[in-house]
């Protein structure tokens, strides 16, 4: 039995400590967002945040998560009230099959928190771990820039 904190809620999970977080999220907590893509840390489809850092949930055992905050795409907003990064992806229609998109959104969330003023080449370098096979990257880049602008504007207004 392990205790982890996902999207702000503490949950007890009946799984071996070595169990990768991905399977706990998907099967025990029934969260669809993080996807199995490779199990090798090569594609980023399983990306979630642990304490605001993007991690491959397919490679992260739940034993290292004690006292840390896990955030999945479900923690960013809902269908009725999507978060700013989700809104930007919807506005740019930045998906085809969409399988890679939750991982893209989570890495974007981390990027904006760490580098709110990232340049185009910094954005591309930061997003390099995540693969999309439908070729939606050009739209994803537009969505990232849109989210970045909106979140900067929002934080500037709060500061004012």
């Amino acid at each position: 039995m392990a205790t982890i904190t996902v999207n702000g809620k503490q949950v007890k999970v009946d799984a071996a400590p070595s169990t990768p977080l991905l399977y706990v999220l998907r099967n025990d907590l029934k969260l669809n967002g993080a996807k199995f893509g490779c199990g090798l840390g090569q594609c980023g489809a399983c990306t979630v945040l642990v304490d605001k850092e993007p991690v491959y949930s397919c490679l992260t055992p739940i034993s290292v998560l004690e006292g840390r905050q896990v955030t999945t795409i479900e923690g960013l907003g809902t269908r009725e009230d999507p978060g700013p990064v989700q809104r930007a992806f919807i506005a740019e229609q930045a998906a085809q099959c969409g399988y890679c998109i939750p991982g893209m959104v989570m890495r974007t969330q981390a990027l904006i928190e760490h580098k709110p003023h990232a340049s185009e080449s910094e954005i591309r370098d930061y997003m390099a771990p995540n693969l999309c096979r439908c070729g939606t990257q050009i739209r994803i880049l537009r969505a990232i820039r849109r989210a970045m602008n909106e979140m900067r504007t929002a934080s500037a207004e709060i500061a004012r």
Partner: protein
Amino acid sequence: MNAPHSRRTFIAGTGALVVSFSLNRAFAQEGGAAAPKPPGPKLPGDLSKFPKMDSWIKLEADGRVTVFAGKAELGTGIKTAFTQCAAEELDVASSAITMITADTALTTDEGYTAGSHSMQDCGTAIRFAAADLRAILLELAATRLSLDAASLKSADGTITAADGRTVKYGELVEGLDQHRDVRAETGIKKSGTFAVIGKPMNRVDIPGKLTGGESYVQDMRPEGLLHARVVRPPAYGAKLAGIDTAAVEKLPGVVKVVRDGSFLAVVAEREDQAILAMHVLEDAARWNDTTALPKQSDIQSYLRALPSSATTILDRGTIGQPGVKALRATYSRPYKSHGSIGPSCAVALFDGGNLTVWSHGQGMFPLRSALSKLLSLAPEQVRCIHTQGSGCYGHNGADDSAADAALIARALPGRPIRVQLMREQEHGWEPFGPAMSAQASAAVDDSGKLIDWQYEVWSNTHNMRPGGAGNLLAGQLIEAAFKPDDPKPIPQPEGGGDRNSIPLYALPNARVISRFIPQMPIRISALRGLGAYLNVFAIESFMDEMADLAGTDPVEFRLKHLEDARARDVVTKAATEFGWQPNAKLPRGRGQGFAFARYKNLGAYCAVAMDVSVDRQTGIVKIGRVVAAVDSGEAVNHDGIRNQIEGAIVQSASWTTLEEVTFSDKEITSRDWSSYPILRFPDMPDSVDVHVIDRPDQPFLGTGEAGQGPTAAAIANAVQRATGVRMRDLPLNPARVKAAIGV
């Protein structure tokens, strides 16, 4: 557009509600291939196969509308475009429409969702069926109101008379026979009156996919679900010689080991337990009898030396004209992986002698046929329900995983079984896009026009899809193994390996020969665009070579040989929007390239212009600005078309500059994303702009596969202008580029 849509589709696919529904639907599907053809002219789209209105659309008394599409959503946005078609022609809100896709119990058999056919075949049928339903409702309302139908207006599911009286569609359902032949003569709306077609509409599936909705077969968790993993053989032809399963069966959570011949799988309570057990099972399995593979570096000459049958598919004028200048060249492509980001997955339930399979394969009816043979069941005992998966781009591992799930489910009746392939299983065992080669020779006359054109293409089949149980991997592995179907070429005009091998250009003397090679050393099937990718790469590279030989700008050279007005428009649009300048002076290491094709010579027109830079030290080809123009006929959803072409350009850029399936003399060796790299964000083009040329009131031409070929040739043409070196063998990867430019 809202949650209830996808939710309802799922419920319709998973619950008991289906039983009574399917009885209705079996009735609605009457009029298939075996039914007598309706009199009169051929009905448009797949109405010609299924003429009954309620095969496509059904109005309920509460005003809600269900649309039944035999084509599936593969991530291209087709559900949204179908919704627009129905909403427009019926005059209902798109939110009133529930879309059911590819389900053997509920929809018509439209074969595979492939070949950029969905809009032509299914979208057209939905439009005509919805338009005729609206016409009938207007007639019924006219009778009720004692008015002339022409004086009535319809909008948002309500009919309004000039005197202000209204009738809701739902009020007219009672006694309305919707199981009737669609009258094609009713026709569809003319452009200029559209409220929905051609107007912006967001994808109906994107909000769910962005917020953790249950969107994919991978996300299904029916009550009592068990997780399974398969163990694939280490190489083609390997047979399971022996295995001791005792240790695996004692592992935590393991429910069962399923073995049938060389088919091996393990079922567990938890997914992670199934994966651990799979690894133990892999270590315990002993295999023998692998099939030797040809040497990868010699694959093109190996394939061309195999027996082949030649068909002359174009023979015009008198070939052998010497002209004033002539050229000959050979082009090739290696095997390519579909490389879906999500490994294939399926859920199956064997209950009461009946099998239900949820699959992201492209053809639910062909899959049902294959599974019924595999499990010796009657087709009526098998139901296949399309449920979205990761993008497939052709025949990937989807059908294989459906067969895996079916075999495992039969061994554990009453429990839903979810099986997902591992990355190395998807990459190692999917049916690849075939390796191919082509030889072109041509001559220009003293006016710079092509006076002679000869082209030959060598290819395996591009279609080993199920239908036959031996085309499913599990079918080949079980003890009572099935043989794969005999490979067949796909005939012209669509073609398979010879798709797009006949140029659209005006050529007075031309011959094209298609050489079909039956023997397949590597497992192959359909990959987006089939032979068009190599043929357009070859023809459009060769057009540039001939333009240089004639001393003509490549865009001008193409226009000089194009008579089709829509082709000329697309070429001109792409060149103009790009700002194409003949002999543009670019810095050293940079070049611009152009290419064009009409997909299958009967689908969408697409032209691509781009600039690239080539790093002489690393051999890396970096794509800068890309501009494309596309004519897909009448445009239902402009952004959907742009999204498809943008994706095609990026995917083809990856195929063209990086990708190659690798293999040793024993086995496939490109089994993950490090051994089969694809383009990542830092490698993306600087920009991609797609211009849609809308053709109101013209038939749909499809979009999904139009961009791959032109992109490949535009890259090679730009690389030639950047380096002075013509590269004719794909991929143009850094090692090859360095070798070609001699650094």
